[in-house]
Structures are given as structure tokens and as C-alpha cells.
């Protein structure tokens, strides 16, 4: 049963390394991590495999991975921690789930020069962003001709998009960010709801970004209101007729960005290996993620959202009152359909 190291010992290692920099940090980490020998990661990031391959090639450490959706990663960590079972050293998943774990005091801060280089939105309490989900308005380029591309989200409420737009049934975080954005722009609650209701009245609801992206490529939908940029970029790279960049001009803005990140478990049996992995993911790993069309957390020269208006998800509010946003989005997605 992986219950070896006591939490105190892990925290000693974390504190010691957090204070080190440069070669000294790497050397100490590698020495300690080699003694530990293995590393257990729980993740919902399907592109992490390639990062793990790179890590295992660089360091003589065996990595065990549990992959699930972000909900099951969270459920598993919570169940195990409540039973004092230390199944993992490291968790790599979405912001909402990481915030819950941080809130329940299961994570330990990671410090260093690499964290300091991460986009401000990604230096969260208890965890550090490794990549960003970028929600964009995408379209099928055979269904939407150059020049006809939507210019704004509001435009999708226009009757000319009737039956051509797709929303995703689980995108509560994107919805909350957009909703807050319009309130901040001076719209009233009623006006924001009306806007969403009218977009939903034009929309076909999909479940899952992958199915939605596939159906966009196939032409079942003309426009998706909240696709991940990497879903569209990957498909376009395969030759599919999809894009989120208009033939001329800039993409639809604002763009909601939400960090996904990594955190050290407070009770990790292999704390040094865990820290070594975070260091790796924030350096070499960033290049590997970039190859999978992911937007890394440390801005690079060819930053895909550079110069564009981005907004964040109201994390604190979503954490304090998760049911409120769920219920509101559920209601709008369902009742908006009745607006003719």
C-alpha cells in the first residue's frame, strides 16, 4: 500500500527545494528523485503522455499514470485522501478541480523561477498552470465563406445563424466568464440572459468538445461558440476545413482562457520526483505541449493569444457557489430553446 512517507517528510523536501535555484536545484532534485525511483501522477490531460515519455527518457525514474476526466481525478484524490491512502505524488488537471483540492488543504506550494515565469492568471494558490484552455469561436470554412465569419459573440444571436451554431452542454466555466464580462460591460442581468437565450435559440447543443469538433469538421455545425483552440488547430492541421482565424481581421473576442495546472500532493511518497517533474513540464514540457497545439502557461514568441482580448473564469465565485452557475447554464441551455 503506497502510504510510505509521512506528510512531514514530504513537506521538508518541498521546503528545501523551493528555496533552491539553478543547477543546485536540479542536481539536488535528481539525486533525491533517483533514490525515490518512481513517481505516481493522476491527470486528466490527454496530451501529458508525450511529456511523460520525455521525462522518462531524461531521468531514470519510472512514472505511473492514472488518466481520467477531471471529475474522476478529483473524486479519486478526495476519496483516497479521506482514507489516508497516498496513491499519488502529483496531480495535473483543470483549474476548478485543483481549486477544490487546494481548498481542502491537500496540496503544497511549488516555488521557483519557472513558476515566476508563468502567466499571472496561472500562478494560483496551491497550484501552478502548465497550459491554458483557450475557448474560441470556430467555424467550418466551407459552410461559412470568407467575409461571412462572425465578428462577435453577440452576432450569433442574429436570426441568420439559426440552426447553424453549436454550444456545448458542459461549458459552465466559459459561460460564467462571458456572463461576468457582459455585466462588467454595463449590461443588466436581464440583458445578458436575453443575449444567451437568443444564441441558444439559434443553437444545436452538443455534448463533449471532441464530438462537437468532429461534427464541425463534418459540416453538421457551421459555427461553434466555445471550442478549444487546440481542437480546431489539430483538426485544421489534419486538413479539416475549420478555423478560428477569419480570412481577414482578428478572431472573435473576448477569448475566455482558463488555466490547467499541476500541483504537488502534501502527503506525496515521492516528493522530489514530483518536483522534478513539475520543473520538467514547465521547461522542456512546454515545447512538447506546444507540438500538440496546446497553449503553454509560459508565454513564448509565437503566443497564439498575443494582442487579443482575453478574460478569465471567475474562479473564486465558481468555487464558493458551484451550483449557482451550473443551474443558470442548465436553465438557459434548456429554456432558451423555447424563444422562437
Amino acid at each position, binding site marked *: 500500500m503506497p502510504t510510505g512517507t509521512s506528510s512531514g517528510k514530504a513537506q521538508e523536501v518541498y521546503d528545501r527545494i523551493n528555496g533552491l535555484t539553478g543547477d543546485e536545484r536540479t542536481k539536488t532534485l535528481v539525486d533525491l528523485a533517483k533514490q525515490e525511483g518512481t513517481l505516481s501522477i493522476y491527470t486528466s490531460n490527454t496530451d501529458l503522455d508525450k511529456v511523460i515519455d520525455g521525462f522518462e527518457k531524461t531521468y531514470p525514474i519510472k512514472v505511473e499514470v492514472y488518466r481520467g476526466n477531471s471529475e*474522476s481525478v478529483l473524486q479519486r484524490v478526495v476519496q483516497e485522501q479521506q482514507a489516508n491512502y497516498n496513491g499519488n505524488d502529483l496531480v495535473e488537471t483543470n483549474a476548478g478541480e485543483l481549486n477544490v483540492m487546494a481548498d481542502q488543504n491537500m496540496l503544497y506550494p511549488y516555488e521557483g523561477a519557472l513558476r515566476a515565469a508563468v502567466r499571472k492568471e496561472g500562478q494560483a494558490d496551491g497550484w501552478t498552470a502548465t497550459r491554458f484552455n483557450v475557448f474560441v469561436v470556430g467555424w467550418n470554412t466551407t459552410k461559412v465563406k470568407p467575409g461571412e465569419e462572425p465578428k462577435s459573440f453577440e452576432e450569433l444571436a442574429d436570426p441568420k445563424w439559426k440552426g447553424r451554431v453549436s454550444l456545448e452542454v458542459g461549458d459552465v466555466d466559459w459561460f460564467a466568464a462571458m456572463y461576468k464580462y457582459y455585466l462588467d460591460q454595463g449590461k443588466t442581468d436581464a440583458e445578458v440572459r436575453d443575449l444567451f437565450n437568443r444564441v441558444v435559440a439559434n443553437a444545436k447543443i452538443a455534448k463533449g468538445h471532441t464530438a462537437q*469538433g468532429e461534427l464541425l469538421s463534418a459540416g453538421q455545425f457551421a459555427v461553434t461558440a466555445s471550442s478549444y483552440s487546440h481542437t480546431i488547430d489539430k483538426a485544421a492541421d489534419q486538413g479539416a476545413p475549420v478555423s478560428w482565424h477569419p480570412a481577414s481581421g482578428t478572431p472573435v473576442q473576448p477569448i475566455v482562457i482558463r488555466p490547467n495546472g499541476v500541483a504537488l500532493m502534501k502527503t506525496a511518497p515521492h516528493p522530489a520526483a514530483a518536483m522534478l517533474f513539475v520543473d520538467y513540464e514547465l521547461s522542456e514540457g512546454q515545447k512538447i505541449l506546444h507540438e500538440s497545439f496546446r497553449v503553454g502557461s509560459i508565454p513564448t514568441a509565437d503566443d497564439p493569444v498575443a494582442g487579443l482580448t482575453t478574460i478569465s473564469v471567475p474562479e473564486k465565485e465558481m468555487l464558493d457557489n458551484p451550483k449557482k452557475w*451550473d443551474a443558470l447554464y442548465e436553465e438557459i441551455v434548456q429554456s432558451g430553446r423555447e424563444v422562437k
Partner: protein
Amino acid sequence: MTTASPAVSARRGATLGWLRRLGTPKVIIIVVVAGLIGYLALVPLYYLIWGTFFDADGFTLGGFARAYGDPRVGDMIGNSLWFAVGSAVLSLVVGTALAYLNVRTDVPFKGLFFAASIIPLIIPGILYTIAWIFLASPDIGLLNKAIEPILGPGFFDIFTVWGMVWVEGLHLSPIVFLLMVAAFRSMDPSLEESALMSGASRWQVFRRVTMPLTRPAIVAAVLVMVVRSLESFEVPALLGLQNGIYVFTSRIYFVLRSYPPDLAAAGALAVGLLVLALIGVTISNLVGRSGKTYQTVTGKGFRPRPMELGKWRPVMGGVIVLYFFLTVVGPLFVLLYTSLLKFYQAPSAEAFASMSLDNYRQLFDISDAMTALKNSLALGLGSATLVMILMAVGAWIVVRSRIPGRQLVDHFSFVPLVIPGLVLGLALSFVYLRSPVPIYGTIFILLIAYCTRYMPYGMRYAVTSMHQISAELEESAQVSGASWWQTFRRVLLPLLSPGLLAGWIYILVVSFRELSSSILLYSPGNEVLSILIFEQYENGQFTVLAALGVVMVLTLAVLVIIAYKLGAKVGLRQD
């Protein structure tokens, strides 16, 4: 305490005698099996009930308010019932017709026909549904494009309740097919022959003799199908949502998706299903119980001889081929076609030019693919075998024994059917994280999960077959001096084998797809195929997923054909 007195030792002697009587293999086996069924059902049921009715402040009915309080709940239940009853009727008609043709007539290519009838079940639900979108979407459907010159654009619309019924009904028809195959195999054709001799027409015989004799199987099929479709989420999510058709399970999705999941509301919905299901089980037992009505396997020897179709043989052959083109070849072709592309696009010269085996190559590059295939095979074979052995004894307890409370065994075995997979996963991890026996983190926790999930199906298959076997066979064996265990093993098991084999095939096939509890319970090294499917699905590689689907269909089809060939060698011999 006083010193030992003669009274005490006498009592001890009585106890020992009592124990000796209880210590027979029969009693031990019955107690162990009933205990296991109870244990497997009660762990998740307790977790579910506790989570539904109790929160931090004590007893509550808040979950019911949240689950049923939605103003649109009436519409949802209406849609759900329409969808569930429609799918059940479709699968019943299709499954029964195919089973009858396969078992009772001399249609050509029986082995292939058998495997083809099961294929819709093998294809993962997501893939089967998306394949149908590519075939029958009013916007991009290939079938619609093909008939557009004759019937105009958008003739078929898969995004309706009828479309949902079509996909779900066909996808689940193998459950009925397998149940009915078992029932028809154990049927004495002399009854039908007598009816024919007395001047009844073929159709009259089918309606008045054949169907009534298989009523227990039909009731079991309807029951399982209705509950399954009420619970189904993949088809309504992919087809219904697009046009705003919401079903009962949409609520379960909405209440479970955020953290902490609203287990109380999900539980309240499951409790609703549970009540419905238990009423169904009771009805099905009342139907099956009515004495000797359905017992066609009696002391009188018979050989189920297939009916000669004569001049109808080529006609039926044609109908079957047409059916398979529509329901099996169509979706399979879409999958095969997609698995060769870089992304899905309508067939064109360009699309064909871009075809390659890259997706298959990628599939075999996935580091865990072989481990996952091995684990899925081990778990599928293991859980199918264990469940069918347990349920054979379970069915004996329910149908044959006079033990008080035997109906409870049947009810408990049915409970897991209504428990959401996520709740089962949570319940099992909760228990085994705290158990001194190291089961958590090993493949055995998955085995326990699978046995729990598939127990209801196993029981339906076993009970249905048991209803067809006359008690007089066991009685004669016992009169001739056979022990209970010998009778069970040498008389009952062979006679039950068509039903047990059908249930075994069903569990083997669907276990390859189990995701909702596996995803919480597997650990590194214990990956299963459904986890790979899920990853490919999450990762946006639909074309690789299609390739995985094709490989799964081929693997399982081979297994099913082997099982069918082996199955034909045991139990009732056919001419």
C-alpha cells in the same frame, strides 16, 4: 456462568446435529451464493440510499426536490417513456425475429448470422451513435444524400425521438436476441407440430403457441430493455440535445457534473427507477411462476428440429441480408471508412486519395494498448464466468427452492441495474480503501465492479432458462439417488446451458465497454480498453477511435463465433 450441566451439553449436541444438517454442500452453496448476491448489491445500495436520504444535518428529502423539482420534469419523463418503450418494442421485434429465424429455421450462414446479430452491441455506444449521425443527419447524412434525388433533402432525421428509438433499439436488440435464442433452443417443437397438424396456419402457430411459450423470456427482455433505455445517456445526449429533447437521465447528468456531485439528487432519480424495476421483477416472476405452463424441457425427450423454410428460404435470406446492410454493415462501413481518414469527410475522390492505415499504426503505438486488451479480456471472461455460475445457483434458489425470502435474492440481483456507474465506483472505492484486504489498486476491484454491474443481466438469463425446465427431471435424478449437487451439475447445468451461454456472451461483450465505474477504479497497469476509448474520445482523435472500434468488433466477433460453435456442442442437441 455456571458449570457445565447435562442440559448444556444436550443443547450442544443438538446444535452440532443442526450444524451437521446445515453443513451439506447444498446448504453451503446456497448460503454462499445468496450471501454474495446480497453483499454485491447491498454495498452500492447502502451507499446510494445513505447519500440520498441523509446529509450533514440528518434525514432529508432535498435530493427528491432537486431531482424532480424541475418544471420541465413532466416533459422529460414523457420523452423518456416514449424513448424507452419505443426502443424496447423495436429491440423486442428485431431481436425475437432474428432469434426465431436463427434457431428455429434453416436459414443459411447461421454462425455468421449469429455473430452479426451481436455486432451492434459490440460497437461502443458513442461510435454507433456518431456513425448514425454520419448516415442519417438531415444536413450531412450519407443516406439522405443518396436518396435526395428521389425523396428530397433531409428525408431521414436522426435528431428526433424516433431517431433515438431507432439507434437505441437496434443497439440493444442483441440483449433480446440472446435471451430469445436461449428460449427457442429449449423449446419442444412437437407442440408447434401438433398445432400445425390440427390445421393452424404458420402465423397462428407463431402467435398462439410459440410466443406464449416464451413469455417469461419476453417479459424479462421488456423489463431489461425498458430500464436500460430509461438509463441510457449516450444516445439522448448525442441525438436528443441538438433539438432540445431532454430525457430523465439528462437530470442525472446535470446533477452529477459539478463538485461535489449531488449524489442525493442522482440517488433520488435512481430510487425512482428502482421502484419501477422491482415492480417489473415481481410481475416477471408472477408470469414465470404459473406452474408448468412454460416448462418445455421435460422428461420427454425431444430434439429441437429447425423448421424448413422451403421456397421462403431465399426470401428470408434476402430480408436478413437487407437488415444487416442497414443496421450492421452501414454503421460498420462508416467506422471502417472513418478509421482510414485523417478527419471525417463525405466520400469523394479526394477523401479516398487521402486514405491510409495511420490511425491503426497510432493505435498500436499507444503504450498501454496491449495491456488494456489483455486486462479487458481477463476481466470480461472472468466476470462473465463468475456471474453466470453464481446466477445459475441464484436462479435455482429463486425458481425452484421453497426457502422463505427467496424473492429477495432476485430483487437484490436486480438492484445494480439502476445504480449509476459513478455511484458504484464511489461506493466500491469507499469500502475497499478502508478494507484490510488489499483489493483497492488491483484488478480485483474492477472484477468486483463488473460482477456487480452484470449480475442483473446474468440473473435474467438464468431465471428465464430455469422457468423452461421441468422440475420432474431433478426429481427423477434425486429419486435415483443423486445428491443435490450431482443433480445440479449433471442435470440442471447442461439443460440451462443455452441460457447461461447467452448471458455469458452478453456480459463478455458489454464488459469491454464498461467505463463509468472503471474510470474511477482502475490503476496504472490495470488499464482496460474502455479507458483507451475514452482517452481517444477526449483527445479529439475520432479517427483513431474509429480504428479502435473496428479492432474491437473483429476481436469480439471472433470470440462470439468460437463461443457459439462450442455452445452448439453442449446442452440440447439440434438435428
